[in-house]
Every structure is written in structure tokens, then in C-alpha cells.
């Protein structure tokens, strides 16, 4: 499995599109931190700080697209033929792709809070209103919550990419399914406690619990359940399909 993960990492890092998306993901995190810093006039320092640290919705979208690209990009270019003639076990290939997507997404999650802190330092240094009000424990809590949320969306992106075998269709399905349909369903019914986007919201901003959203632990379980389920469906379908 280590060989396959190394292969998928070489593939991912050797494409410009990967680094463009990583750049966009970082911009998303900076935008989230700035929006938290600027958009909370009159709120408590604590509320402002938590909003600055919370994970970015734009970055969630970007890591999902990254997952779609890592999987569906191989079909669009037909390089999947080379991949499957070197590695006949398709499960290994998909799991390795998911592992690489998770690693990149988790790395982005890892830098999310330090980046937010840096943005806040610059904001306050420039005379922006508010003060940083969070200890190391809270920062770690936000850090790993964000890592799990980003990683979960990246896995779902890989599964959608495998199932759709098309970058355009995969991105459209990911956007519509996760950021439109799931979000609408989550806002209008009992489904909200189980919605994938609600789980991401709970992980991105773990110290602000809102009614109708899952608790932090439940959100981790939901993220693992949905990500694992979709990945398993992707593997099951792909093993039976012709290339």
C-alpha cells in the first residue's frame, strides 16, 4: 500500500492544478479569517476569535474539487489505463488516492489555525478592532476539527470523482450535492442533525454549538460514516466496471 500511496503522491504533486487548488484553499482560509476579524464589530473578543479560527467553506469546496480532480482527472486523460496496467487491484488505487487527498486536506487543516492567528496579528497590528481571546486548547480543538472536516470532504471528492469519471460532472455533482442539496435539506428538516454540511460546520466551528447541528463527536462519526460509505461504494462500483 505504501508503494501505491507514493505513486499517487508523485502524480498529485507533479500537476500544476494540485498546487493551484492548494493556493486557492489557502486563500479561502485567509478570507475566512479576515471575514471573522472584520465582520464582528460589537461582538465579544471570544466570538470574534472563534470566527477567525473557524474552518473555511470555500476551502471545503476546494478540497472537494481537489479530490474529484485526483480521481476523475485520470479518466479524462486516460492515464487510468496506465495506472491499472501497473496496479491491477483497483481498491488499492482508490484507497491510495483517498489517502493522498486526506493528507493534503489535513495539512491544510493543520495550518488553518496558525494562519488565522497570523491574519489576526496583522489585523490587530494595523489597528483593527478586537483582541485575540483563545487559549492553546481551543486552538488545538479548532485545528483538528478543521483537519477532519477538510479530510472528510476530500474523501467524498475522490469517491465522486471515481463514480463520475469526469472532472466536469464530478465538480458539478460535488457542488450541487454537497453545497446546495445537502445544505438545503439540512436547513428545512430533521435531516439537519445528520447533514454532511452540518457535520462540517460543527467541526469547523466546534466551540459554537447551534441548535439542530450535530455535536463535535457526532460530527466526526458522521464525517467518517459518509466518507467511508461513499468511498466503499466507489471501490465496489469501480471494481466491476470496464475501463
Amino acid at each position, binding site marked *: 500500500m505504501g508503494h501505491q500511496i507514493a505513486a499517487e503522491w508523485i502524480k498529485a504533486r507533479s*500537476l500544476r492544478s494540485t498546487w493551484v487548488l492548494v493556493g486557492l484553499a489557502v486563500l479561502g482560509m485567509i478570507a475566512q479569517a479576515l471575514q471573522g476579524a472584520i465582520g464582528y464589530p460589537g461582538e465579544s473578543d471570544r466570538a470574534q476569535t472563534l470566527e477567525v479560527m473557524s474552518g473555511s467553506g470555500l476551502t471545503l469546496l476546494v478540497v472537494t474539487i481537489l479530490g474529484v480532480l485526483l480521481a476523475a482527472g485520470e479518466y479524462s486523460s486516460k492515464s487510468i489505463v496506465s495506472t491499472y496496467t501497473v496496479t491491477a487491484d483497483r481498491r488499492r488505487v482508490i484507497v491510495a488516492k483517498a489517502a493522498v487527498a486526506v493528507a493534503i486536506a489535513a495539512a491544510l487543516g493543520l495550518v488553518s489555525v496558525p494562519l488565522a492567528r497570523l491574519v489576526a496579528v496583522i489585523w490587530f497590528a494595523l489597528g483593527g478592532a478586537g483582541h485575540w481571546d483563545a487559549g492553546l486548547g481551543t486552538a488545538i480543538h479548532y485545528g483538528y476539527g478543521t483537519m477532519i472536516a477538510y479530510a472528510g470532504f476530500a474523501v467524498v471528492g475522490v469517491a465522486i470523482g471515481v463514480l463520475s469519471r469526469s472532472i466536469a460532472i464530478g465538480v458539478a455533482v460535488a457542488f450541487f450535492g454537497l453545497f446546495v442539496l445537502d445544505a438545503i435539506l439540512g436547513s428545512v428538516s430533521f435531516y439537519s442533525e445528520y447533514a454532511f454540511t452540518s457535520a462540517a460546520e460543527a467541526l469547523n466551528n466546534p466551540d459554537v454549538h447551534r441548535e439542530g447541528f450535530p455535536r463535535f463527536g457526532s460530527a466526526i462519526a458522521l464525517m467518517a460514516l459518509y466518507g467511508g460509505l461513499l468511498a466503499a461504494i466507489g471501490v465496489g462500483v469501480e471494481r466491476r466496471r470496464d475501463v
Partner: protein
Amino acid sequence: MIQAEELTKEYRHLTAVKQLSFTAEAGRVTGFLGPNGAGKTTTISMILGLAEPDGGQALVAGKPFRRLDNPATAVGAVLEGGAFHDGRPARASLRASCAAAGLPASRVDEVLQVVGLADAPDRRVGKYSLGMRQRLSLAQALLGDPEVLILDEPANGLDPEGIVWLRQTLRRLAREEGKTAFVSSHILAEVQATVDTVVVIAEGQLVSEFGVGELSGGRTVIARAKQADRLADEIERGGGKAVRRGEELSITGLDPDRVGEIALSAGVALSALGVEQQDLEQRYMELTAGKGR
């Protein structure tokens, strides 16, 4: 060795391959021929585990492809048009395959040298010409030094020098290193110059499997006579087969000396007598006449 045993593949309204059986032996170059839509690419896909047969099986080195422990060291494949991401440098594409197969990264530079791409390894594949992409495909196929090579239209886009190199490489790998080479191509003259055995399919079924060496024995005697009908009867009586086109007879089963003797004893005056050597192209056209999809 590659063995296809009763291979069958059906799509919704089409049987692409029907009970196809053949063997590609080790130490030989086997040509795989057929008209467009004959089922060649589908067959190769089934051999490589890219498509699941609906019946029968394809074995490579005695196992179905998907059960091979490390396919890259057992089979190297060149598929039509190459299978690389345009945005990825050639070296990175090969390094990824090396990593997946557990091969040392140094193998990448070795195979790039072998196929003549050592001077452009970091160029993105999208910037490569068709010929360079074909060479890169060959490099990928050779990475694991496999016992079996499967090449779908490998000469496409190659310049004359590249075609000669490919022919010599395939013959060397088969004859000196005992590898199995299985080559699909539309360039029949090149196939005849390269392969030892030919498998011809049409409409998804085996039409013929023969050695290229047999073609030299497959010659036709051409005789011209005003009394062509009478000569044809005498030829039939003498054990030969004659096909008449006006005053010309195409005769098989007899050598020209015997045809001359029969004409003389029958009192038929010949205006011409000669031999037409049958080549792969003629044989192929006869075998597949009217069978394209």
C-alpha cells in the same frame, strides 16, 4: 505466454468478441490483425484486465491479469495513443509507475535512454509529438522488464527510424530474451517484417492463426491461355485448383513446372506462365473480405 480461451464480450446490442481462442507463445512476436471494429482493442482490454469477459478467460503467464502479484513485472502494455496526463512531465509519469510497482527510480532514466527520450524527460507530455508519446508508452511498458509485451498500434506516429528501431527491439526481446510480444497493427508490411505468427480476427471471431513462414509456401501459379477452360479441367484432374479470370488462371496446389507439363500434354498453348508470391496483405484481404463492421 498469452492464452485466450473462448473469450467473449457482449455489449447491449453487440457481441464484440465471440468465443475467441488463440495463444501467443513465449520467444515469438505474434501479430494481431483485424478490420476496424473486429474486436482487437476489446480483446486487449480483456487480456489486460481493463474489461471483464462475459465468457471464457485470458491468461497472462498462466494467470488472469487481475491476479498477477505485480503486473508491471509480468506485462508491459502500449495502448493506442498513449495513456498519460498531458499536464504531467514524462519523468514524473514513469516515476509514479515505478513507485506503484516497487521498482527503483533509477529505472526511469534507463528506459528513457532505451527509447531515445533521455534529452526531454522533464517536458510535459502534452508538449510531446505523437511519436514521442509512443516512445514514452514503450518506456512505460519496459519499466518492469516484463516477460510479456502487449502493443496496440505501437508504430503509430513513429518516424521510419523509430519503426526500424521498434521492429529490431521486438525481435530482439522475443528471440534473444524469450519474451512474448503481442502486437496489433494496421501496417501489414511492417507486421510481416516483424512477427512470427499472425492471429487474424473479424467480427469478434478467430478467422485464422498461422505462421508468417507459411506465407512463402502460399504461392500462386499464374497461367494465360486461349483455351483456359480446357486447361482448368486438366489442372483439376492433375490435383491442382484453378480459378479462371478470362484467359488467366490462378492455380494453387501445383508448381509451375507441373502446370507447364499438363499444358503441354493437353496440347494447350500457354501465352504466359509465372508465379505470384502471396504476401501477408493478400492473405489478410482474402481472410477478411467483406467482414469489416
